[in-house]
Structures are given as structure tokens and as C-alpha cells.
């Protein structure tokens, strides 16, 4: 990156470090921080959406929907994350390719499963093997987002389901006596009031989600953990201009500080949000702010 980096052997101290930290290979580490942030940014709202859907379904009066909602919540919550990640991503990938195969190549006569191999016609591949590598990476990333959203959506659904039940019954009864329809009660009373009860649980989930991002590595997305391990490993002078010993401990220390700082900032924001939400409510949190008049 810098001009003086053309001869790394002659460098030492700070200038060596500044060259080392800006090699194209090292930049991948910084990009992967972006990948993790992007994943969180997309996954959190999606998971919340899944959670909301799951909670509403679990509350439904129609038996079939209720059973489906409850099944989603309890099955996904009960399966270990790693098992779910390993199974689900392969399954959904093969399901998509299988459906594309059925639609796009109806004249194909060979079986899709040939021994160990999963073979679909060339144009049914997802992404096509002729697409550039970045499309493959985005596809893998989207699969990861989807999987994260399903897993964390189930937990969020449970939190929201509980929060909806925590809204005081008197509030609902009052709304009904004002002549609101069921839909209006849900939209105007239940949902606005439940957030207060859901927030601690959702905040918890957010923290766990942040800490779960290294699972990306399991899905073949090269995240910060992959690059920390790869860059931190011993490098012999034969294969790099920047040889060094086993520095993984420093890289992982950096990761630890990154995650700690990140969760700390989240904590502060959640606390602030909690204070805003409880203002004026008939809860202990609201009363502590001295906002509830007597």
C-alpha cells in the first residue's frame, strides 16, 4: 500500500508493521469485520420478523397454524445450533438445486443421487459454476443469513410470545370496552405494550447473536475467525515477505477486544432503549424514573 513497502526485508519496527498490516491478504481481515457487521445488520431484523411471525402463529386460534408455530419454536430451539447449521445449509442448498433441476431440465433422465454424488444439470446449479467467485460468496452469505434468522427467530418468537402474554389483562379489557376490534387491540395496545417486556429477552438474544457470528466460518464464509487463524499462523520466509512466528494469540486477543467492545456498546444502547420504553408505564422500571404520577 505504501511506497516504502516494496522492500519489506529492509524494514523494521513501526514501518514493517504498517506494511505488514496493509498487505492485500491482511485487508481481507478488515473486510471480514464488515462481513460480520453486515450479517448482524441484516440478520437481526430478519430474525425479529421470523420471531414475530412465530409468536403470532403460536397465539393463533386456528389449530393448524398454532401447531405449526409451536413446532417451529420448539424444534429449532431444541436442536443444537451447530447441528442445525451443518444440516440446514446443505439441505436448503440441495432443495433449491433439486427444484431448479426439476423445472429447468425436465428431459434429464439420469438420477440426481448417484452414489455419494449430488448431480443436477449444469443450468440448475446454484449459483451457476460459471458465475464469478463473488456470486458464490454472496450466495453462501445469504444462506448464512437465512439460517441465522431461522435459529434466532425461534428464540425471538418465544420471547415475544411471552411478552404478549405479559401485557396486563386490564389493558386489553379496557380496549375491548372502548369498542376496538380484535385487530385494533392487537395493533394499538398489545404490540406497543409488549416491547417493554420483550426487550430484556431480545437484548439477550442480540448479545448471543453477536457472539454466534464466528459460526459463519462453519458455513464456509471466511469471517474474522478464519482470517485471524490464517494470518496468525507461523509464516516461513520462503512463502511470504513478512515472516513471523505463531501470532495467533495476538490475533485472537484482538478478536476478543473487538467482541467485548461491540457487546459493551450494545449493552449501553439497550439500556437506553429500556429507559425510553419504560417511561410512563406502571412498572417498577417506570416508577423508578419518577415518571408515574400519583
Amino acid at each position, binding site marked *: 500500500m505504501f511506497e516504502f513497502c516494496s522492500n519489506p526485508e529492509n524494514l523494521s519496527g513501526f514501518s514493517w508493521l504498517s506494511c505488514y498490516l496493509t*498487505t*492485500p*491478504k491482511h*485487508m*481481507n481481515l478488515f473486510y471480514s469485520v464488515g462481513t460480520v457487521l453486515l450479517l448482524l445488520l441484516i440478520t437481526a431484523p430478519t430474525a425479529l*420478523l421470523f420471531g414475530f*411471525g412465530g409468536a403470532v402463529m403460536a397465539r393463533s386460534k386456528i389449530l393448524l397454524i398454532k401447531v405449526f408455530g409451536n413446532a417451529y419454536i420448539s424444534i429449532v430451539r431444541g436442536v443444537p445450533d451447530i447441528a442445525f447449521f451443518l444440516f440446514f445449509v*446443505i439441505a436448503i*442448498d*440441495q432443495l*433449491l*438445486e433439486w*427444484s*431448479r433441476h426439476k*423445472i*429447468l431440465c425436465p428431459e434429464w433422465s439420469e438420477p440426481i443421487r*448417484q*452414489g*455419494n*454424488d*449430488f*448431480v*443436477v444439470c*449444469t*443450468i440448475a*446449479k*446454484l*449459483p*451457476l*459454476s*460459471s*458465475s*464469478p*467467485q463473488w456470486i*458464490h460468496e454472496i450466495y453462501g452469505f445469504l444462506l448464512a443469513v437465512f439460517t441465522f434468522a431461522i435459529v434466532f427467530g425461534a428464540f425471538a418468537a418465544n420471547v415475544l410470545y411471552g411478552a404478549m402474554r405479559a401485557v396486563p389483562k386490564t389493558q386489553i379489557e379496557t380496549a375491548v370496552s372502548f369498542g376496538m376490534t380484535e385487530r385494533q387491540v392487537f395493533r394499538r395496545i398489545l404490540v406497543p405494550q409488549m416491547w417493554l417486556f420483550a426487550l430484556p429477552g431480545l437484548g439477550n438474544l442480540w448479545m448471543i447473536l453477536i457472539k454466534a457470528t464466528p459460526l459463519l466460518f462453519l458455513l*464456509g464464509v*471466511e469471517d474474522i475467525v478464519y482470517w485471524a*487463524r*490464517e494470518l496468525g*499462523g*507461523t509464516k*516461513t*520466509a*520462503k*512463502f*511470504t*515477505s*513478512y*515472516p513471523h512466528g*505463531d501470532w*495467533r494469540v495476538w490475533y485472537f486477543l484482538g478478536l476478543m477486544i473487538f467482541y467485548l467492545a461491540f457487546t459493551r456498546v450494545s449493552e449501553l444502547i439497550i439500556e437506553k432503549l429500556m429507559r425510553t420504553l419504560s417511561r410512563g408505564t406502571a412498572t417498577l422500571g417506570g416508577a423508578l424514573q419518577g415518571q408515574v404520577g400519583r
Partner: protein
Amino acid sequence: MKKLIISAVIWGLTAGLSLADSHSVIRMGTEGAYPPWNFVDDNGEIAGFERELGDELCKRAELKCEWVKNDWDSIIPNLVSGNYDTIIAGMSITPERGEKIDFTTNYVMSDPSRYLAASEGADWKTGVIAAQSNTIQASYIAATGATLVEFATPEETISAVRNGEADAVLADEAYLKPIAAEDAGLVFVGDAPIIGGGVGMGIRKSDTDLRNKFTAAIDSMKGDGTLNALIKKYEISEQMF
């Protein structure tokens, strides 16, 4: 939400239809963590013996190739499920692997594996020996009197010896040599067992055409001596074709 899912599915099913007839690209899967065979260089690109070899093979077979990195442990499962089309990652040809995937003809002959230890007197016969999981070395140690500890990456096997967790590490000589050369604390000990039937490219069993193309390309490189030159350049093996 329903609409979202449906439109996502439709997109998923139809995406890239217009590109469908463009000629196909062969995706080459490698580990990128096993110098000098394959590694990631300072520019973030896959480099090493197999990069140069693979590019030349693709040129000779008139294929368009793209390089993909994949973890060693899942490198066979991801080949058979079609994430890439070949494995070119210093993989030895063994009967167990041959049950799941096919191999091209070998491009490196079976070469001795070596024990690397922290001291001359290390107990490589019955001690604790580190090896990368799912390698021929791991199954070799499991069959001897030594205790096997497995690691997911080659790097971790070396640090296990450095920090005393293992008495020695068993790996390909070409991988251990540059490490031993730069670290005075590590020495070669014991036997040099010859394991496996040489190194070849892994290909799906259903992809016979592709396997034949690569075998032909490897044979042509064996014939004109370019393969031997590459093996010498990267110090992969003492044995030439």
C-alpha cells in the same frame, strides 16, 4: 412475509437463466493452508505448487478454471455435493477415499512422511503424535503403537509440538522441511514411512469426462518434463516421473 418468501424462491429458481448457455467453469477446490503445496500469498491469492500445476493443467485441457478455498475436513463432502468440481490439495490416493470419489492419475509419487519433534530423543514410536485429521498420516499413526492427537489445520499440528502437547508431528516432508529449516528448536526424528499411493486430483465419480481430461493433461506434463520441473521448483518430492 409470504410474498417475500415466494419472490425469493422464484428468484432462486430462475436466477441466471440468461447465463445458462455460457460455457462452464471448472471450480478447483483447495485448502490454502499447506505450503508449499497450496497457500495464500501476501496478495491474498492462492499460490504454491498446486496453483501453478492446476493453471497449467487447465490450459492444456482447454478448461476455464476458478480457484476456491475450502476447509480440509469438509473438502470431500463439498466436492460430492457439487460446490466445486475438483480437489487439488495434496490429497493422497487411498482406497478409503476411492470409495467416495475418483482420482486422476497421480501428479506426485508417494513420498516419505516425516516425524518432526522438539528434541532428538523424542519418543516417536509410542509417544503422542500430532497429525491433521482425515489425512493418511492420521490413519497411519492410529495403526501404530503411538497415541494420535488430531488437529483441523496443519498449523495446529506444528504448534502442538512447539508447546509440548505432542512429542512429534507426522506430515509430508515437503511441508515440514521449510518449517524445520527456520526453527532450530525442531528436528526430524525416526523413520520416514511411505504412506499412500501418490497424490492426485479428486473428482466426483459421476464426472468421468473431467477425470479423463485432467489425467490426459497430467500425462502430457509428465511426458515433456514440465511436471518434474515444477516438483523441483517447489521442492515437493525427491522422486521424479
